[in-house]
């Protein structure tokens, strides 16, 4: 056994609080170690060269690198040793940065810990065996979950790249949040005008199949070969017949359905088409508001429908799509305004949210683009915008910044002035965060050209006084309390994880953070990957993002998918379970516990019944190994012996 150990300074990141020279020195004393050295940056090009040369020069057959976390550079160094002709599984990493040098200033203690980390790695390395991955065919189709701007971008790029693309959108139309916006910052482009064409491209693309008003029910399989069950929710309208003429909506007597698209600014009909530019432009019934369902009689829509598309008996339908990769672009939700009782949103009609205001501003919105107070339909003269309505507020569990509010408030202030030249806007803010290209200029225009008054401070209470809403807050620059009598108050409610985000994460086996946003596999270097191979992230599902960032991520995710599916065969990770048929007694406890049904019973020629692993299905969790009483089924690269070696390296009596 000839183990070589390379200890990285990582500049001062490690060397600063770990005596790397001593680690090397101690390491040389270990049985099996024939070479140990420390190096400034082991991951650098010369650093890697150092390794490849040493492998040849010293005839190393095991390599250990003591540096950062394996989650960071294991892949890098595996490639390095492979270049030098060593099987990439004959390599181990000791984490002496995140777990040693960065956890405290005590150099002595850190060094001790580092030395033992290396000792464990060496002990494990000496029991490493070469592993060879087998390859399997990939299904060159991709599933995109969510058809907001990020999801649509990802889908279009994938389809353009030649992939069969399946898009699942939970609402009846594609477009997402962006379709609700009136204009976009900092250019004041008409939102739907730039989004509309994309929406059309999406449905018309020959390689894109859209399931609107549908949700992911179950995800099975593994990278390259996922089977996804999709629930197509009952619309009670046969979309193959529906022409979107709107006759039914016209005549429908059920007038009080909640209008999801307009965020409840005004009610809609029980049978409705979400908005004029909706794609697909089809009607659907909301049963809880439909007389046919609640009262059991009505049938108006069925009578008036020229194509006889109405079908009250329709049931949800489950379809299964087989894909090789998945892009998750489920977007964001908005903080429930009830959580801000001191602002009275929900109680006072003239306190509304930013997205509702977008609908008021929008020409195709319920007020046809006229800004009027919900309470009495009068044009407001004074409009107050409250930023950080929930955001950056630990006390209600939203410690983070919602990213785009500062900008859309500036935009809305500008639009307000455009719509109502004699109006006056006020903006309460904590900080104006305008870091994008042309953003700061934009917020300044709002103040300087459009005369929006920015007040630095938070709002403590909003209450009605006569027909006015009094907004009371602090002006921290003047050091006083201010009260503004507003006709309309707009709250920039915090962006939150999309409703149901965690449930979807559990189906996909990807992780989400404490705020419910999906976790990327590396915050800097793998921003659109997840820890589950073949599943990628795009847009605000990963954290609040504005349109350019979401579109960028959509394309990034698409690029990742295209490079993954550009191969006909994928290499399976050989670190999977393996049965020693000589030792296996065929009790098949492993078969009962495998979370992936990756184990089947097999009868040897001798007639002996044993367990056998389905290579492509095994995900390498090792539950079977922990279940097997006789150690016959071993998770490669994490065998009992390897883990025991680490334990023994630590606890020697």
């Amino acid at each position, binding site marked *: 056994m000839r183990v070589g150990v390379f200890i990285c300074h990582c500049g001062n990141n490690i060397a600063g609080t770990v005596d790397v020279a001593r680690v090397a020195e101690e390491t040389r004393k270990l049985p099996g170690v024939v070479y140990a050295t420390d190096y400034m940056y082991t991951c650098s090009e010369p650093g890697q060269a150092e390794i490849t040369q040493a492998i040849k020069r010293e005839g190393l057959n095991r390599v250990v690198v003591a540096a950062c976390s394996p989650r960071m550079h294991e892949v890098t160094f595996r490639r390095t040793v492979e270049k030098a002709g060593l099987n990439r599984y004959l390599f181990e990493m000791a984490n002496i940065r995140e777990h040693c040098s960065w956890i405290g200033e005590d150099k002595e203690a850190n060094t001790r810990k580092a030395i033992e980390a290396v000792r464990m790695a060496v002990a494990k390395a000496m029991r490493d065996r070469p592993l060879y991955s087998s390859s399997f065919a990939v299904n060159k189709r991709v599933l995109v979950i969510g058809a907001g701007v990020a999801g649509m971008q990802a889908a279009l790029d994938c389809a353009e790249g030649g992939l069969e693309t399946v898009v699942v959108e939970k609402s009846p139309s594609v477009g997402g949040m962006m379709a609700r916006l009136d204009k976009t910052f900092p250019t004041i482009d008409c939102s739907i005008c730039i989004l509309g064409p994309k929406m059309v491209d999406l449905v018309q693309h020959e390689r894109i199949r859209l399931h609107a008003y549908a949700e992911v029910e179950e995800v099975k399989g593994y990278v390259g070969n996922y089977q996804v069950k999709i629930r197509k929710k009952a619309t009670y309208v046969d979309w193959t017949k529906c022409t979107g003429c709107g006759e039914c909506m016209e005549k429908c007597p059920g007038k009080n359905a909640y209008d999801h698209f307009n965020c409840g600014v005004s009610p809609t009909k029980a049978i409705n088409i979400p908005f004029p530019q909706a794609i697909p432009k089809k009607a659907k019934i909301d049963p809880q508001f439909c007389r046919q369902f609640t009262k059991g009689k009505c049938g108006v829509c069925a009578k008036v429908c020229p194509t006889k598309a109405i079908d009250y008996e329709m049931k949800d339908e489950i379809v299964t799509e087989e894909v090789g990769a998945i892009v998750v672009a489920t977007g964001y939700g908005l903080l429930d305004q009830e959580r801000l*009782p*001191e602002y*009275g949103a929900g109680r006072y009609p003239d306190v509304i949210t930013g997205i509702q205001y977008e609908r008021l501003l929008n020409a195709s919105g319920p007020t046809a683009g006229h800004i009027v107070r919900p309470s009495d339909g009068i044009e407001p003269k004074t409009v107050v915008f409250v930023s950080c309505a929930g955001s950056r507020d630990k006390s209600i569990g939203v410690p983070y910044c919602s990213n785009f509010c500062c900008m859309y408030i500036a935009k809305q202030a500008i639009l307000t002035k455009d719509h109502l030249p004699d109006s006056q806007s006020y903006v309460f803010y904590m900080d104006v965060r305008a870091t994008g290209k042309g953003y700061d200029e934009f917020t300044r225009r709002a103040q300087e050209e459009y005369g929006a008054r920015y007040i630095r401070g938070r709002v403590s209470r909003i*209450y*009605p*006084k*006569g027909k006015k809403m009094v907004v009371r807050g602090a002006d921290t620059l003047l050091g006083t309390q201010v009260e503004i009598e507003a006709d309309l108050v707009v709250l920039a409610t915090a962006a939150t994880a999309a409703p149901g985000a965690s449930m979807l994460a559990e189906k996909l086996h990807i992780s989400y953070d404490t705020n419910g946003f999906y976790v990327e596999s590396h915050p800097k270097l793998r921003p659109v990957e997840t820890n589950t191979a073949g599943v990628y992230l795009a847009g605000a599902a990963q954290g609040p993002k504005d349109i350019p960032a979401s579109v960028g991520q959509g394309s990034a995710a698409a690029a990742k998918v295209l490079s993954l599916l550009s191969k006909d065969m994928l290499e399976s990770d050989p670190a999977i379970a393996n049965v020693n048929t000589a030792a296996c007694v065929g009790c098949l406890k492993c078969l009962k516990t495998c979370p992936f049904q990756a184990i089947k019973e097999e009868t040897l020629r001798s007639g002996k019944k044993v367990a056998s692993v389905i290579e492509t299905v095994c995900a390498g969790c090792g539950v079977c190994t922990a279940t097997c009483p006789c150690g016959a089924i071993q998770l490669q690269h994490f065998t009992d012996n390897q883990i025991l070696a680490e334990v023994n390296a630590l606890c020697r009596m």
Partner: protein
Amino acid sequence: MTGKRSYAYYEGCSLEGTAAAYDASVRLVMESLGVGLEEPPDWSCCGSTPAHATDHLLAAALAARNLAIVEGMGSNTLVTPCPSCLSALKKAHGRMAKNRVFKEEVNGLLDTPYQCTVAAKSALQVIYEDIGLEEVARPVTTALAGLRVAPYYGCILNRPPALACFDDPENPVSMDLILKAVGVDVVDFAFKVECCGAAFGVPKAEMVHRLTAKVLDMALDAGANCIAVACPLCQQNLDLRQGQVNAALGTSYHIPVFYFSQIMGLAYGYSPGQLGIDKLIVSADALIGTRGPVEKSSAAAEAGKKEAV
């Protein structure tokens, strides 16, 4: 109602003095609702403002002493009409229940250690949650046609939410619903939990004048002709100071400020004298002059039932 409810009843210093009317009215109302109130023997100061401004340990010990007495009575719920007492008692209980060390520290000062088994509730909470609106509506005999009430909860009755665990901290409704249940007009009042400034009465009178004026002003704005409160300090401040406010700001406020229990008492047919309404600084005679009998299962009771469901 099944059986006779009974609670330990802690009146505290205010209700013995300036707020005697609150005490009297609460006792009468509870009687009509068939609730027994038992005063803890030898109760002492609750340890609110004066104490906890000086020493938190002392403050907690004072509160815990009373709570321990209640444990001695074999009761697990303590009713107190005064929000200051309430939060003092709840604060002490909460911190002792959470922090073992602190509990031992406090109990070290007491003859009888407090085991943290008593839940303190405001009279309002007991009436709203334990008794319920339907019961509240039942004893109504008198219609109070003239009253349009602005319910004023004050700053600490249901705050901080984590401690009070009762009603909405920003938009409480319990008093609104109780008063509606006894058949009184209740206006939508935005300053339910606004600070009335009472605590600054001595050091910053002119500020208190402004704050008090705001509350009174908003009440009138909302179309109320009287205010209902659940706190001795609020009552004193809003009622006693109206004159001062008028003098200082040249206003002419004349809004009676009742304890919510006094209004309930009136609805239950007690005389203003029994309820101490004759002791209000801003006279309510004109307002309550208009009251007259209602026959049972009247609109009031109905209203009560409706609110209850």
